[in-house]
């Protein structure tokens, strides 16, 4: 499994042609207390840059964009009842969606962990 990062502060763990997508620890810290997560329906086809999910904090709604083209094969239903998990374990149990990739070439546009850490350090 290889984990990639997007400039929009998502992590993408790829195993075969399935990518598990969530938001990074930095992103959850910026959002603050998460009170609601809206996830896409299973079967939905996403193009890179499409709105894939919405995270609502106490104060504001933030969109999560699809980092890659693909079809949603699973959404993390646990987040519907326990949105605060996004704050507690953003890069683990609080994954958002699993996407079946349709264009693996797009992975080359993403960052590895070292590059993402450098990006965050500069913010």
């Amino acid at each position, binding site marked *: 499994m290889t984990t990639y990062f997007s400039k929009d502060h998502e992590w993408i763990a790829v195993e075969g042609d399935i990518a598990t997508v969530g938001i990074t620890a930095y992103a959850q810290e910026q959002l*603050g*207390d998460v*009170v*609601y997560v*809206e996830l896409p329906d299973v079967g939905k086809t996403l193009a890179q840059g499409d709105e894939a999910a*919405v995270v*609502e*904090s*106490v*104060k*504001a*709604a933030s969109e999560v964009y699809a980092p890659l083209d693909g079809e949603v094969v699973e959404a993390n239903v646990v987040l*519907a009842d326990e*949105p605060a998990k996004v704050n507690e374990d953003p890069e683990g149990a609080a994954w958002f969606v699993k996407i079946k990739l349709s264009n693996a070439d797009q992975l080359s546009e993403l960052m590895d962990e070292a590059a993402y850490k450098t990006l965050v350090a500069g913010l």
Partner: protein
Amino acid sequence: MADPDAAGDLQKTPLHDLHLELGARMVPFAGYDMPVQYPAGIMKEHLQTRDSAGLFDVSHMGQAVLIGPDHETTALALEALAPSNFVELGRGKQRYSVLLNVEGGIVDDLMVSRPLDESQDGRLYLVVNAARKHVDYPLLEAGLPDNVRLEIFTDKALIAVQGPKAVEVVAAHAPAAADLGFMSGDFMEFDGIACHIARAGYTGEDGVEMSVPAGAAEAIARALLADDRVEPIGLGARDSLRLEAGLCLYGHDLDETTSPVEGAITFCMQKRRRENGGFPGAARIQAELKDGPGRVRIGLKLDGKAPAREGAEIQQLDGTPVGTLTSGGFAPSVGAPIAMGYVSAGHAAVGTKLSLVVRGRSLAAEVVEMPIVPNRYYRKPKS
């Protein structure tokens, strides 16, 4: 006009360094660099205020005083611009009011205080919204008679301490604060520093607002924060607290098109003013009092967990649009999303089921009484 929130042009309150030291996340607000939250986060800060006490820097708000030859002259001067009864405002009492434009629209909402000390008769102290200072002050200056003048304070900070333990905490440094009734205030010393303390606030809780010398603000804030019962609270929780308390945020729930009747704040208009008028836009406002307004501000509780935000359309269950949300978010003390908005007459009754349109989907909501979280203002025991 230049963007007042452009980076670099932001003003700082006397507590700015302290906010940074406390690890606040700073955001532009009404031309000031202000703390939106501290490391605890909005949820904990909100509950801290409801459970114990929170300290808020509200120094960005405008503090000023009207000075006239006697109380009645100053009170009548302000009554020409605002629909409240200031003539009969008692010494040491504070009153919520609004400045009106000629159409009866709200230019700003503000707090007006009459000093307790008889020798200060003729003075009315004002606290206005930060984002409206540039509108309020010229409006006041243009509207005042020659014998009443406006003096704007630029050397004062404003610190709010709110919550069930707030007055206890403040009284340890300013004992006279414990004797204040709700919406009353007086000049007193806080650890030897002269300030004005009023038992008031904007969270629905008991508490005080302290007008203090800018140079002493940090020492006073540090003295309060040294108490285990107090934590610093940012603008994020201030917003969720006031929303639960059913209180309006100017520029969102009130603006120059809304009247006090539409805004459901007619409690700021006492009987004589309702009947006799004599304020800007009186014809419209008195007609709305008599016949009911065309639209009115309501509180809403949402069924699910998804919040609806300002700007969301309010619909009847059949999809007919009936209004717009002006505030909305998650209510930490309710554990569910709540909102405020305006609906056309006939849709405002408590219990009315409505839909809120969020990202193309309808969220079920119901009109509820405001405040949504019951307020706990201090009531002085009858002696």
